[in-house]
Structures are given as C-alpha cells and as structure tokens.
C-alpha cells in the first residue's frame, strides 16, 4: 500500500462501503495528487523489482530458451487480473516462443463445476504438459490453491516452473515445486501486477535478444 493509502480507506476494509460516508473528504485536486503519488510509488517499485530480480530473470530466461530449443512449450496460468497478465506474456512471447495460456473458459468452468476450482489448472497440466515444457504462473498472493496445485502437478511431470508473485515471494520463494520465483516487495495487488508487468517486459526482451544465439 502506498503512502496515499489514507485516500483509499475502502481498500483496507474501513471505507465508506462499511462505514460513514462523510468520513472521506478528498477534493478533486487531491484526487489527481493521490494518483501522482501512487504513480510515482509504482515507478519506484518497478525499478526496485527489476534490480532485485535481475539474477532470477536470467534463470527464467535460460529455462524458457532451453525449453524452446528442446521444442518444448511454455504454458502460462493465473486467476482474474493475473489471467490477463498471463495472456499478455503469451502475446508478447508468441512471435518467438511456442507459448499458450490454459484459460479456455469452457474447460475451466467444466473442471470447476464438476471437480472444484482448485483443479482447474492442475487438470489441464496433467493433459498437456510434458518433460521439456515450462509452466509459468502469475499470482499476486502466492497462496491460490489452484496455482499451488498446478505447480505441484507440473513438478510431478518433470516440467520446469516459474512464478511471478507479490508479498516479497511469500511461501513460494522456498516452495520446492518452484524453479524460479520472480517476486515483488509489495502488498498492493495493483502495484504488484504493475511491477510484474515490468518483469514481463524484461523477460520477453531478454528472451528475444538471446534466442537467436541459443538457436544457432
């Protein structure tokens, strides 16, 4: 949460949705000022995230390139906004790398309805993932049961795993099912996703710049 969190009381559960609406007295100018403060804090977080994850990014790049040279495939997963971030990574990787999401709503609702939401990704990984593949997961909290289940399933199948997460890595930094943990030191879901966006751009940029040499 940024220094302007007092302007977002509803984000901490104490806001007008559950208490007196007159408690909030921001004016229009403060609205723009709040945006500027959050924006600046976000940019600082992006840069810090890129610095602290530099070595992990290199490891992630190596896994993706090795996967590609072995004719493996990259599968990307995430829930909600993180599902959108998964789609973005695939969109940016696709010109260079065989990558796809596991986000077909028909499959997901089928598994969620008949088995449970915790199996929506693990079931698909069981179907698609092979030894040479890489599974990449986006999770701001690092605690989503369906992501943890998917990583465990990928590990059982011998695939490599990369996670983008928040809260400084939380439990995923030491999770035995995770090969590379790219983490953001923040507890704000929005700022985490934005910093993960910066990591995504850096990852794709390094893969694209190193792929031709690896391929040749």
């Amino acid at each position, binding site marked *: 949460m940024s220094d302007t969190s007092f302007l977002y009381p509803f984000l901490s559960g104490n806001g*007008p949705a*559950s208490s007196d609406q007159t408690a909030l007295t921001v004016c229009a100018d403060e609205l723009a000022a709040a945006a500027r403060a959050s924006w600046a804090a976000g940019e600082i977080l992006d840069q810090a995230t890129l610095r602290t994850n530099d070595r992990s990014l290199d490891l992630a790049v190596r896994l993706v390139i090795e996967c590609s040279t072995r004719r493996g495939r990259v599968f990307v997963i995430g829930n909600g906004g993180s599902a959108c971030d998964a789609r973005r990574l695939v969109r940016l990787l696709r010109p260079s790398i065989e990558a796809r999401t596991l986000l077909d709503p028909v499959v997901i609702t089928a598994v969620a309805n008949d088995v449970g939401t915790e199996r929506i990704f693990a079931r698909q990984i069981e179907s698609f993932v092979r030894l040479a593949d890489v599974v990449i997961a986006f999770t701001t909290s690092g605690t989503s049961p369906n992501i943890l289940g998917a990583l465990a399933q990928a590990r059982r199948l011998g695939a490599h795993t990369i996670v983008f997460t928040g809260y400084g890595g939380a439990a995923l930094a030491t999770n035995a099912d995770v090969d590379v943990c790219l983490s953001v030191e923040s507890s704000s879901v*929005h700022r985490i996703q934005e910093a993960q966006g910066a990591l995504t751009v850096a990852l794709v940029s390094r893969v694209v710049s190193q792929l031709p040499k690896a391929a040749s």
Partner: protein
Amino acid sequence: MIVDACDSLAVAARCLSTRIVEGATLWAMAPGMDDHAHHVAVEFVHPSSVGATAVPAVAVTGQDDELLATMRRQVRAGDVIVSMGSDSADATFEVSRRSAAWGTDHVHLGWPDGESDRSLDPRTFVVRLDGDVAGEAALTRAYHLLWELTFICLHNQKLATHPSSTVDPVSCSVCADEATTTEVVEVLGNDRARVQSTCGPDVVDISLIDCVQTHDLLLVHAGVALRRLT
C-alpha cells in the same frame, strides 16, 4: 507526463463515476491487446474483496472492424467506452468520432502514432502515456488508477460530478443554434434517413447531401442534415 496523465485520470474518473451512478455500462477495448480489455472489465466487475459495488463492465475483443460493429450494436446513450493503445487504431479513431452520435463518453488511455495524422475527437478524455513496449506497464498502472479514483468518487458524492466539457457544442452555421451529430442507421430513399443521436433514433431530411450511406456521420439541425462529417 505523469502529472498530465494523473490530472486526466482524475477528470476521467469523475466522468466515469457519474455515469456509473446514472446506470452506465463500461465497455473496454484495446485493439491488438485484448488482455488489457479483459483486465479493465475484471477490475470493475470483481472488486468484491474490498466490498466495492460491482460495475457492469464488458471486454470487447477482436479485430478493429469487429470491435466497432460490437460497440455500434451494443452501447447505449449514457454508457462509457474505455479504449487503450495507439490513438490511430481504426476502432479507437472511429469510436472517438462516433461517441457524440451514440451519446457515449469516451476515455482513451494511450499513445500517439507518430506516423499518423489522425487525431481523436476533442470530446474524448485522453490520458497520455508513453508509446513503446515498456509503455504497457504504464497502461496497466493507468487503468488501475482509473479504477481506484473512480471508486473514491463513487464513495464520495461531491466528486461524482461530471466535469463540464471544455468543448463547445457544434453550431449551425445559419442560426448559431446547437446542431447534433448523428450516425445514419438506414437510408430511406433520396431525401430521408433514419439516424441515431444522443437523443435517440430519429428520421431526418438528407436532401442537401449527396450519396448518404449507412454509418455516415451527419450534422443535423432542426431535422435537416447540413453536412457530412469526415
């Protein structure tokens, strides 16, 4: 850049929150980057973890012509369209110039295309961002902040007031009275056409204009189309 973008975001958030209170649906599109459209929609529909109201928000996806066709078919007067990406994307450009006829507000989070001479309608709320690949991270930050500011406004009544437009309405060149931008829905022979405007469907006289076609934008005053907007 940050200062301008944040000032624009504050204005756009006040517009958006006003329209939401009035019952608007939010339509999100990002030509060539559908993932961002989905992200905006999920932000507004599903903020349940913070107890915020669910806003009807829809991701419109596909190629430019599909985007425009879907918008034309589904948006209603009072709705808000949020577009993202390059200013010169066909769908964004067309949504911008047609919003007056559709009665929608248009918020654009994006960057200019240096090679294009197209410019968006002055009534579009533009949040200006850098336009390289790294700019996509800024785009995500922009719509996250749009959501945050909109919800501050929604929970603070005095902020949920649509800022007055800085653009004067288009005037009739004969009497200086206000003229209306309309989109042709169907041509009814040589001298009449069914049109859509902010005020709803109407039939207007098109005898002063040659070769009117479906989807043309016409400037109408007192039931008569005065000229075609190109």
